[in-house]
């Protein structure tokens, strides 16, 4: 009897539910599309279109009226400055990412080592360089590097070391911009690695300790494999951001001395906005694409893989 009642109720309810469900499903995708529409428009109009447009721009002459094919590219290949920029961009990005990763890794370990009570305070303090807008902190560095009033040189003078031309000499200027980039970026690595360290189960270390593993073995066989994903993805993210960096070089050296510190972004700004040759500038910035594409492919693969694991 009870069964029959339930059956009847179900039968009675089903047709209405199904039709409303179907209507719902039909409406659902439309509603979803409209909810995502502003995002689609924004990406299409202000990201995808300009990105493709820059390909077209790179094939125009300076006044942007005549199609010149690849002659902007051949013109660049013949200029010594261009190859210097390629070299400097690679040195800048690779050195900075490596040092950021190393410093971030060790600082994360130091923070992880101390009692949990004080970790928050230290973490908060060490992330400050990342929080300050880069343009503002670069001004502080510029002042610290001032040719005549450098506060660093004042300290060095106390130790009897002569003044260092932080931004005046090509090699020191290259060192300075990398130093600032490491200063800004290392805290980000520290935070990411700290999060990764916290996610390593304590049991693994206990098991390793019981097996008699020393500090180095624990690091090599437990910590690093567990952190590998985060290390890779953070480094790739940072590689993209560092490779495309603009603020630091622009403010500290503006590309000088004699174009020795220009990276792709600052040189294309210099040519395109200040020099008024937009096609040539667009052409220079296009050379960032290969490295960005490679890094993006790896990141995407990693994220998709992790998505399917979960």
């Amino acid at each position, binding site marked *: 009897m009870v069964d029959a009642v339930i059956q009847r109720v179900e039968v009675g309810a089903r047709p209405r539910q199904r039709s409303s469900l179907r209507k719902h499903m039909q409406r659902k995708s439309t509603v979803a599309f409209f909810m995502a529409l502003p995002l689609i428009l924004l990406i299409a109009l202000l990201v995808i279109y300009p990105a493709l447009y820059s390909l077209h721009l790179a094939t125009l002459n300076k006044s942007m009226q005549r199609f010149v094919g690849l002659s902007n590219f051949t013109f660049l290949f013949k200029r010594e400055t261009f190859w210097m920029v390629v070299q400097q961009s690679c040195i800048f990005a690779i050195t900075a990412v490596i040092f950021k990763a190393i410093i971030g890794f060790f600082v994360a370990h130091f923070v992880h080592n101390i009692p949990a009570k004080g970790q928050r305070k230290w*973490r908060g303090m060490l*992330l400050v360089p990342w929080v300050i807008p880069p343009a503002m902190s670069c001004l502080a560095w510029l002042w610290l590097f001032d040719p005549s009033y450098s506060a660093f040189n*004042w300290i060095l003078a106390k130790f009897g070391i002569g003044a260092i031309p932080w931004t005046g000499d090509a090699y020191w200027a290259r060192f300075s911009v990398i130093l600032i980039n490491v200063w800004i970026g290392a805290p980000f690595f520290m935070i*990411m690695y700290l999060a990764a360290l916290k996610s390593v189960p304590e049991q693994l270390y206990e098991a390793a300790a019981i097996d008699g593993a020393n500090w180095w073995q624990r690091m090599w066989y437990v910590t690093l494999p567990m952190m590998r994903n985060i290390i890779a993805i953070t480094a790739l993210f940072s590689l993209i951001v560092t490779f495309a960096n603009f603020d630091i070089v622009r403010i500290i050296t503006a590309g000088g001395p004699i174009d020795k510190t220009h990276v792709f*972004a600052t040189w294309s700004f210099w040519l395109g906005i200040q020099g008024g040759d937009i096609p040539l500038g667009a052409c220079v910035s296009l050379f960032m694409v290969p490295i960005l594409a490679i890094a993006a492919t790896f990141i995407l693969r990693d994220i998709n893989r992790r998505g399917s694991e979960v």
Partner: protein
Amino acid sequence: MAVATVASAKGAASRPRYGSMSRNRTWALRWSYFFLVLFAIFFLLPPVYMLITSLKTSQEISAATNPWWVFHPTLENYRGLLTSNEYLTFFRNSALVSVFVVSVTMLISVPAAFALSRMKFWGSATLATGVFLTYLIPETLLFLPLFKMFAMFKEATDIELINRWWVLLILYPTLTVPFCTWIMIGYFASIPKELDEAALIDGASWMQTLTKIFIPVALPGLIAATIFAFTVSWAQFLYPLAFTTSVDQLVLPVGIITSLVKADVYNWGQIMTGALLGAAPPLIIYAFLMDYYIAGLTAGATKG
């Protein structure tokens, strides 16, 4: 007997080892603190030096005294800047741009993230990946074509976009929306399906599900995304440098650099004060909402 010897030898060996282990740990702790102090000095040196310089007079800055100490502290630089119309204009422009950009970003990215994470439609998976890829495209690749596009827009419609502060309202969302959408997709995806199913069965519309269930539950993510959008639009340097030039249209980062550095005469006291005040809003937000800030920072790569 042999067993007994082994056991006693083991006991003898293991007892001092416990002691050495705890001693090792103490030393590891001391070294950790030592290096942490060292790195904290390195990381905090520039902001501290900004503060030191901002409290000095021009005479003291150009004197040959110890640059790391303030002998005659003064608030003259702060008074000078906070009463200068120019600086207040920069600050106002920055604040307006950031507030508008944060609102626009949230209005675009929250519904989009909801649609992409819960209401599958044709191409939604591709779009989610696309959103992530756009986040990886740097602004240094786009500013020249955008500049040219806006110039052509002026020719076509006679509406001038370049050298207006509100042009930044169009530009900044390209930086903030992809990332915010991406982390909101992650936060929304972590909400159990039963929750919105229950709401739908109770007769809630999709919009109600979003506003009554998803936004309150994913509030920490929403705060993290808001903080991100604010800090990005406050700190952005390339777009305002390329797209705005008149003094009254500048935002803080560009304003300080182009207008306080007058004709190669650097008034470092004022520049440092301006930079410090410009860095203050993100720092204050960070100080109060540190956990959300860090959650947003790690969400980009750890959620997905």
